[in-house]
């Protein structure tokens, strides 16, 4: 078990290295630079800035420098938010993103699994149709539509909830962004769960359990649901990594000071270090959640247990 975890973490190092390398060079080959503003700077200032940030060095040297800094956990100064380092920006934004993301994840997971199971048990009934239609809405309507519409209805017309901002971080402020963030994932979970549950209920061993007179609850909960949760668990990794690292759309619609926005702001402004920082952050989240999910999977399914 321990050796499995260590092995997995070790194999993450080359992946991270490749991610850093690819994004570094892709970013640098894109035209423009962090100081190409709409109103061009005087050449002297430009030169000074470039020197100050080490952008005048040959590319490979910049790369090596960056690499060694990253190894030491230093993502460098931000070019857009000149007063902060990328580490500081992430440290400031991440707690907001994680809190919102966790809430959304819980909502999506619980809601999706419950709705999917319910629909599967009443396959082809009216309830099933309803659940599936609603989840189709969830999958098809993007959160940049859901967000504004929620604001329009609950904040503008009904004026029940604030339209945006973090406020004091209480639930009142988080409900709308949480729903907007969770809805698409909830829909995915519901559809996955329904499909997996229907398949699980058709399995031969479910027939065995029924043939042995076990009560419906036992058949469904102990035998069908455990199998049906397997695809859900697999989907959990990319979903959790995506939700916890913030969504650029939701954070900008609801003005939430999380890390999701940095990425887009950084990319548009050629803030090399900020973009690289967020990319590495997301990659780390993906790797960690993949590992967690693999361990969870092993717990649920003895066939893939990791010794």
């Amino acid at each position, binding site marked *: 078990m321990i050796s499995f975890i260590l092995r997995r973490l070790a194999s993450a190092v080359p992946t991270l290295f490749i991610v850093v390398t690819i*994004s570094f060079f*892709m970013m640098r080959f894109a035209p423009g630079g962090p100081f190409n503003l709409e109103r061009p700077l005087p050449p002297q200032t430009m030169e000074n800035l470039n020197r100050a940030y080490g952008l005048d060095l040959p590319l490979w040297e910049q790369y090596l420098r960056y690499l060694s800094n990253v190894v030491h956990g230093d993502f460098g100064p931000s070019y857009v938010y000149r007063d902060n380092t990328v580490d500081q920006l992430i440290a400031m934004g991440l707690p907001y993103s994680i809190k919102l993301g966790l809430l959304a994840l819980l909502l999506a997971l619980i809601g999706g699994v419950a709705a999917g199971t319910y629909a599967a048990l009443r396959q082809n009934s009216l309830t099933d149709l309803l659940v599936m239609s609603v989840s*189709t809405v969830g999958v098809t309507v993007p959160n*940049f*539509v859901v967000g504004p*519409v929620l604001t329009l209805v609950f904040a503008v017309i009904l004026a029940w909830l604030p339209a945006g901002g973090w406020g004091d971080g209480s639930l009142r402020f988080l409900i709308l962004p949480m729903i907007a963030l969770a809805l698409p994932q909830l829909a995915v979970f519901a559809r996955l769960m329904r499909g997996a549950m229907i398949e699980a209920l058709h399995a031969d061993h479910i027939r065995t359990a029924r043939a042995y007179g076990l009560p419906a609850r036992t058949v469904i909960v102990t035998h069908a649901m455990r199998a049906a949760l397997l695809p859900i668990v697999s989907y959990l990794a990319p979903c959790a990594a995506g939700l916890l690292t913030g969504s650029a*759309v939701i954070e900008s619609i609801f003005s939430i000071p999380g890390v999701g926005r940095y990425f*887009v702001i950084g*990319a548009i402004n050629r803030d090399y270090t900020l973009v690289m920082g967020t990319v590495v952050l997301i*990659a780390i989240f993906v790797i960690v959640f993949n590992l967690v999910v693999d361990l969870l999977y092993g717990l649920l399914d003895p066939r893939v247990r990791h010794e």
Partner: protein
Amino acid sequence: MSDLAQMPVLAPHAPETRGRSLFALAMRRFRRNRAAIAGCVVLALVALFSFVGPLFSSHSYDEVFPSYVSIAPSLEPRPGADTLQGAMENAVQRARLRLDAFQVEGRSFTATLAADQPIDPRATRYIDRANEFDDTVVKETLEDGRKLVVEGRVTREYFPFGTDSNGRDLLVRVMLGGQISIAVGFLASLVSLGIGVVYGATAGYVGGRLDNVMMRFVEILYSLPFVFLVVLLVVFFGRSFILIFLVIGAVEWLDMARIVRGQTLALKRREFVGAAESLGLSDWQIIRRHIIPNTIGPVVVFVTVIVPKVILLESFLSFLGLGVQAPLTSWGALIAEGANNIQSAPWLLIFPSAFFVVTLFALNFVGDGLRDALDPRDR
């Protein structure tokens, strides 16, 4: 041992000589699926609206109406009858006449002018001088010329969807947005289909070390945040329409490649591929005659998943301000604009969102229908 001749030679339920292919059967199942057919109809209507609609509108997508900025949607033409009445009264006053009756019907008006003395028919010029009226002609002269019935054209504009904050007709812009979103959706899916099928089929069929290397590469691309790739590519290549769908297609092919590879691997183990091999078919013949025809089903289904995904992605990019450049637009860009003006002009959000959501819904139903039809046990 029963005689061979006694063996029932054909399935008893199929008396006709030409068999039904699996594809024909699938199409029959598809046609029976009402939701999917409804989805097809809706898609056709939306496409018609987007691509043919602009021909029926006198406005172009970049035409600015400075006098109609951010007006609410209405089926009534602009300006309204009251405004016209006022304008006509002004014009008539300047001609020192009385206005007895005034009627507007669509884009033409009828007015009855009156005076105490016979009216000079040239008085119509006063009317033509007003911005709103044109081509005024005398239709009838009554009461020895003391009354004139005149007719003319009214310059009126219809804005059933309202206008945006620049004074552009939202209806036409939604049509244009539809053209771009749908076109990007299909073209990008084709690009991802092309790359994905070739890449996946090669990796799956050749197998071994090449497969390992190719799939490792896909995995690395997967671990890069997907939006990152798109944003970078868009920033890199600029924001032209062609590049946007190329870029999205170039990112979306990963899933396609995986699916096709999985299919190919599964097919390679099927006995009919083994049979083809033992008949002496070459690799290429096997891929062409056996692998590709048999992957078509899942691939078609997957394309119906990809098209809405790509439309979503394009609108996401537009939402972030990375999509097509103004004055061109797409549904995503329109929705972003609407979201920014949500309090003052909610119709800017509602119309594009409605078309967008209806289209995605329809695509979804068509996709589900195709999946059920092509893989009937998957239910």
